C-alpha cells in the first residue's frame, strides 16, 4: 500500500537527449494516491508503458525521482519495490500448474505453505480459477493465462500497487467486459492502488476513478472520465475522448467580436472576448463537443447558418457533418429531434464552449 509520487520525472531512450522530442517522458510531477483506481490513457507511443516500467523499476529514469510513500525508490530494483505488474501478453510459467504459478511469488519470499494455500485459494476464487488449479499452465487459453498472470500480482498482500500494461489486448471482446468487472471488484475488495495502461477510452473510463491522459510524453490532463469529457484540458483530450472528437475552430478578436474565419460568432461572454484579446499567441481555438452543439432546422435567434455536408445515421442518434464558413464541424442529433436537410442553424451554448490557447484550455473568469 503506497502513495506513488513522480517528481520532476523525465526519461529518454537516447544516450544524450537534447530536444524535447528526444524524451519519451517529458518532465512531469504526478501523484497517484494510495488505493485509487487509475487509468493511463493515450495513443501508442505516447510513453504510457515507459512510465509504467519506471514506476515498477524495470526502467531507470533519465532524471527525476520516484517516491513510494515519501521514500525515494530510484535505486531499488523491481524485486525490492513490492510492485506487481501484469503485461500485455500473458506470462505464465509453462511447466508449473496453475496453483504453482500463483504460489510462485509467495514461495520466492519463503512464505509458509499454509499461508500460500490460503492466499492462492482466495485469489483463485476471485478470478474463477479454482477448477483449473491442478492443470498445467501451458495448455490454458489466452484469457485463462492472463488471469493467472493477474493472479500472481494479486496473491502478494504486501504489494504497493498493481500495474496493468494493456492487459486485455489478447482477450476476446466478450471476456474483456467480464475481466474488467473482475478487476474493479478486486480493487474494491483489496484496496490496492491500481494503474491501468490502455489506449481504449471505454476501458479506461469503466475501470478508473481518475484517468491520466498522456500525449507526447506528458500527462495533459488528469481527471474523472466526466471531467475529461466535459472540460478537456487539452485539445488532444478533446480529440481522443468521445466519438466523434471535439470540434475546434480557430478564432480571432476584432472590434468587440470574435470571428472564426469570416464568420462572426455571437458570443455574449465578455470575459471570453477579453481572454482572447489578452493572448499573445495566435494559436487560439474554441472547442465544443458535437453533443453540445444545438442544432435547429429553422433559423432561430443567435444561431449560425451552416451547410449540411453529410448525415450519418447511427440508430439512436445521427452525426451531422457541417460546414461553417470554411470550418468543418460535427454535431450530434438525438433520435426524434428535427434533422436539418441542407441548412442547419447551430448555436454554441457558452457553458460548453472552451477556449484553448496553445492547445491548453484557458478557463474564463466568470465560470
Amino acid at each position: 500500500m503506497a502513495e506513488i509520487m513522480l517528481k520532476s520525472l523525465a526519461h529518454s531512450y537516447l544516450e544524450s537527449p537534447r530536444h524535447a522530442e528526444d524524451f519519451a517522458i517529458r518532465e512531469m510531477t504526478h501523484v497517484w494516491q494510495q488505493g485509487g483506481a487509475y487509468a493511463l490513457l493515450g495513443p501508442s507511443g505516447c510513453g504510457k508503458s515507459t512510465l509504467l516500467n519506471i514506476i515498477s523499476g524495470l526502467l531507470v529514469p533519465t532524471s527525476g525521482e520516484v517516491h513510494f510513500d515519501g521514500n525515494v525508490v530510484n535505486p531499488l530494483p523491481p524485486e525490492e519495490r513490492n510492485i506487481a505488474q501484469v503485461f500485455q501478453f500473458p506470462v505464465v510459467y509453462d511447466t508449473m500448474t496453475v496453483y504453482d504459478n500463483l504460489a510462485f511469488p509467495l514461495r520466492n519470499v519463503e512464505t509458509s505453505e499454509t499461508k500460500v494455500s490460503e492466499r492462492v485459494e482466495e485469489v483463485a476464487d476471485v478470478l474463477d480459477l479454482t477448477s483449473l488449479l491442478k492443470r498445467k499452465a501451458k495448455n490454458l487459453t489466452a484469457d485463462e493465462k492472463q488471469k493467472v498472470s493477474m493472479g500472481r500480482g494479486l496473491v502478494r498482500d504486501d504489494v504497493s500497487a498493481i500495474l496493468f500494461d494493456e492487459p486485455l489486448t489478447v482477450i476476446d471482446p466478450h471476456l474483456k467486459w467480464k475481466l474488467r468487472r473482475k478487476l474493479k471488484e478486486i480493487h474494491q475488495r483489496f484496496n490496492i492502488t491500481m494503474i491501468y495502461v490502455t489506449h481504449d477510452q471505454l476501458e479506461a473510463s469503466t475501470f478508473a476513478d481518475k484517468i491520466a491522459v498522456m500525449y507526447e510524453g506528458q500527462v495533459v490532463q488528469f481527471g474523472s472520465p466526466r471531467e475529461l469529457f466535459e472540460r478537456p484540458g487539452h485539445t488532444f483530450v478533446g480529440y481522443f475522448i468521445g466519438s466523434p472528437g471535439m470540434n475546434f475552430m480557430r478564432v480571432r478578436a476584432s472590434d468587440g467580436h470574435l470571428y472564426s474565419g469570416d464568420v462572426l460568432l455571437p458570443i455574449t461572454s465578455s470575459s471570453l472576448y477579453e481572454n482572447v484579446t489578452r493572448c499573445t499567441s495566435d494559436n487560439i481555438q474554441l472547442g465544443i463537443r458535437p453533443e453540445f452543439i444545438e442544432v435547429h432546422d429553422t433559423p432561430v435567434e443567435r444561431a449560425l447558418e451552416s451547410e449540411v455536408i453529410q448525415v450519418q445515421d447511427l440508430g439512436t442518434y445521427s452525426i451531422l457533418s457541417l460546414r461553417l464558413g470554411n470550418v468543418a464541424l460535427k454535431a450530434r442529433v438525438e433520435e426524434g429531434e428535427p434533422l436539418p436537410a441542407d441548412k442547419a442553424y447551430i448555436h454554441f451554448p457558452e457553458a460548453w464552449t472552451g477556449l484553448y490557447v496553445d492547445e491548453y484550455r484557458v478557463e474564463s473568469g466568470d465560470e
Partner: protein
Amino acid sequence: MNKIRNNRAWLLILPMLLLVAFSAIIPLMTVVNYSVQDVFDAHTRFFTGTEWFEATLNDRDLQAALLRQFAFSFTVLAIEVPLGIGIALLMPKRGWQASAVLVLVTLPLLIPWNVVGSIWQIFTRGDIGLMGVGLRGMGYGYSITSSAVDAWATIVLMDVWHWTPLIALLCYSGLRAIPEAYYQAARIDRASKWSVFRYIQLPKLTNVLVIGILLRFMHSFMIYAEPFVLTGGGPGSSTTFLSQSLTTMAIAQQDLGPSAAFSLIYFLIILLVCWVFYTAIMNMQKEKYHGES
C-alpha cells in the same frame, strides 16, 4: 454427402518415391543383399540366411566396441549438453560483443573432422605438442599412445571442444526467442536466478535441446575420423569405436558379408535409440497434456 473419390493424386508422389529409391532404398538393398549371401565373384554366391548376423552379434570384439561406443556417446552428451547450455547463458546478448563471441564459439564447428584429429594429434604430442609438453612439464606422464585413460580423456576432450559449440548455438537461439516480458515478470515475482533458469529458460529450451541431443547422439555414435587420426583406435583397442571396426572389416579384410550385416545392425541401433528418445520426449509432453484434461 457425395464425396467424389479420386485417387489419382497418389501419382503426384511418384517423383518423390523415385528420388527416395535412388537416394536410400536401392543403396540400402545392396547392403541387405550382401548381408544374407556369401559373394565370391560376379557369378558365385551362396545364400547364408542369418549366419552373418549371428556371427556379428556374437563377436566379442564388436560387443566391446559397441559398449565403448555407448560409453563414449553418453559421456560426451553428459558433458556437452550442460556445458553448451552454460556457455549459451553466458554469451552476450547484443552489440558487437555478441557477434564477436558468436564467431569465436562457432569456429571449431567449421573445422573438418580429420583436421580436428590432426590438430589434436600434434597438440598432444609429448615432444612438440603444447598440451603434451605442458602436462609432462607439470609432472604428469601424459601419453595417448600408451595410456588408455589418457587416450580416452583426450578423445572426449576433443569431441567436447569440437561439438559443444553446436549445443551452445542451438541454446543461444532458443534463449534469444524468449520474450523480454518473461524476465520482467520474473523480476516482479522476485524469482531467483535459479528459478528463472529452471522455470523460464529451461522449459523454453526443450525443443532445441531435443534436436541438439538427437544430432549429437547420431554424430558421436558414428564418430570415425577424429579418433582414427588421433589414436588409430589404440592403445590396444581401447579407443576403437564401431565405425572403425566396420571399416577395418569391410575395407582392410574385405569381409563384405559380415560387414553388411554389421552395417545394418549399426543402422538399426541408431534408429532404435533415436526413436526411443524421441518417443519418450514426446510422451512426456503428451502426458502433461492428458494429465490435465
